[in-house]
């Protein structure tokens, strides 16, 4: 564990930027405009660890919303090299989400070469959360507001300085090459970091006090496979699909082809299970035609079938879906309602 002053951290980032493109969250005016920007958008020479995750999910740097995946006919059948991108300030919920997507895009029989390439090349300089947002729920989803692994470097706040934890060989090398002479962190600084972390956990507990689950979400959803409850739960959904777009673990996509110069190109775009066209087949048959069915599918996939197939839930509690929802649908509440109904059902069955 090392320590560095704010000024020297900023200098190191600038130095890094001579070698790598960089994105990092820059706070503008309100919390809500906290976004990942390239370092050139950052003008005031100040950079601080952002309090919580950005609205923009980290996944967009690993599989962009729209990507040209091939040209045909007669073109390079292999995927080209990619320059490393350094992503600074990523939070645990986003990093855990990449581990979830890895199960599909990286560890299956057909790894996506573009995702694989980005996973191998991109450098993640993560950071602790220094606060908790209203919708933040990592602690409800078996996770924590700071990353424990799967980063190259991690930044934590302690007194005036920033602590740097090394998470990989690559991180070690970055530290040596770009951060100059740096000191080891003191015991007091470590204690301060732990105290900060604990206070964010306490805050998260407070925010989520009303949400207590007694059962696995999978069990609750299994009991509702044929339930009418989904209709009520999805009542205010306007089918905008934002929950899936900003979700750090949603990975569905669609391929389409279009002419390009004298050939054709194949484009991969993010898709959403909230759109009826998502599963529409020739002849018009759509397996999940009704909104309630599509709504159910999202929860079923994240908390039930993903667990069946990969042993983990496809949610890291980042809270973006609840925050972005125009219909004020809160994922935590949906899960709670489902559970309440199961408890009711069980009571009825018992009596």
């Amino acid at each position: 564990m090392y320590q560095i002053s704010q000024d020297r951290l900023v200098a190191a980032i600038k130095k890094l930027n001579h070698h790598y493109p960089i994105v990092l969250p820059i706070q503008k005016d309100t919390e809500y405009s906290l976004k990942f920007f390239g370092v050139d958008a950052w003008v005031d020479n100040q950079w601080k660890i952002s309090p919580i995750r950005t609205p923009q999910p980290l996944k967009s740097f690993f599989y962009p919303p729209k990507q040209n995946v091939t040209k045909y006919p007669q073109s390079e059948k292999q995927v080209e090299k990619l320059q490393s991108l350094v992503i600074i300030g990523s939070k645990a919920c986003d990093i855990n989400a990449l581990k979830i997507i890895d199960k599909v895009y990286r560890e299956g029989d057909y790894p996506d070469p573009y995702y694989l390439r980005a996973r191998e090349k991109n450098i993640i300089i993560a950071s602790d959360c220094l606060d908790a947002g209203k919708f933040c729920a990592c602690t409800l989803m078996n996770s924590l507001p700071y990353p424990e692994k799967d980063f190259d470097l991690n930044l934590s706040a302690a007194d005036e300085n920033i602590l740097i934890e090394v998470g990989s060989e690559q991180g070690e090398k970055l530290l040596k090459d770009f951060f100059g002479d740096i000191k080891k962190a003191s015991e007091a600084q470590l204690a301060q970091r732990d105290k900060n972390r604990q206070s964010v956990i306490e805050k998260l507990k407070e925010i989520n006090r009303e949400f207590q689950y007694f059962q696995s979400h999978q069990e609750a959803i299994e009991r509702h496979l044929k339930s009418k409850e989904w209709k009520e739960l999805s009542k205010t959904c306007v089918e905008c699909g934002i929950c899936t777009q900003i979700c750090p673990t949603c990975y569905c996509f669609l391929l389409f082809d279009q002419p390009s110069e004298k050939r054709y190109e194949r484009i991969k775009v993010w898709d959403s299970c909230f759109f009826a066209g998502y599963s529409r087949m020739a002849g018009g048959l759509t397996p999940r035609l009704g909104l309630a069915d599509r709504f159910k599918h999202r929860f079923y996939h994240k908390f039930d079938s993903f667990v069946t197939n990969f042993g983990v839930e496809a949610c890291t509690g980042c809270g973006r879906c609840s925050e972005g929802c125009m219909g004020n649908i809160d994922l935590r509440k949906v899960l709670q309602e489902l559970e309440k109904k199961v408890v009711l059902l069980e009571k009825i069955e018992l009596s």
Partner: protein
Amino acid sequence: MEKMLKKTSQEYKMENIYYPLETKVLDVITETPTIKTLVLKPPVEIPFKAGQFMQLTIFGVGEAPFTPSSSPYHLETMEITILKAGHLTEAVHQLKAGDNVGLRGPFGKGFPLEKFEGKEILVVGGGVGLAPLRALLNDLFHNLNKYKRVSIKYGARNPSELSFQRQYDDWKKLLHVDFECTVDRSDGKWSGKVGLVTELLENTGIDLNNSYAVSCGPEIMLKFVTLKLLSVGFKPEQIYLSMNRKMSCGMGICGRCNIGPYYLCKDGPDMNYAKIQKYPDVFG
């Protein structure tokens, strides 16, 4: 097709799984007014199992999943039989000998032929659904001594919509193979059976204790065939359905083709009914 790369590669010489292999159309056979068979000549042989499917690219139009209808034992050419159903399949029907298309695959698991050995196999097709089943039939016929009986029941909307008519006589001549077809509506000249394909499932004489049923066709037909098979005594475990869902990637990563936790593109498209029966959207 050049072998798809598995697992992580350290260097960036990664095979592009989205790239379609250019393939010549050798011939186009008109099966019915709405169904055509493309005879393709892939630049390299594409080994596949009966029931596995390909992603077919029509240049500039896009891709859609189709199951080869030719024999897994004849790889010099590959036949794909396609119903005109919309945007991409309209373009398929415009193709001529000499045109180029693209192929990715094969994808999916295919039929569990090992399980079928020593059994009586009831093959039930509806409309263009006989196309994927023809690959299976070709495989069964190639090893006919391994199976006790192959019984084919086929239904189409009207006599002109019966595909592969040129082959029925050959099929009927095979030992332990029987073939029966029916149409929903006769056209006057038709002297065969009129009625839904489910009616052919009433008295099959099949040994229920030693058989499997396999079906492919429109979703509504699959539903009624399944109900009929159950009512005549088949157990869910004995029924394999070749299911359709919208697919984009074919490789289990784009998300949409699931029935419950099963993704048809990698766990199917031929599914044991016992596995999927509890899911509410199994028949659309």
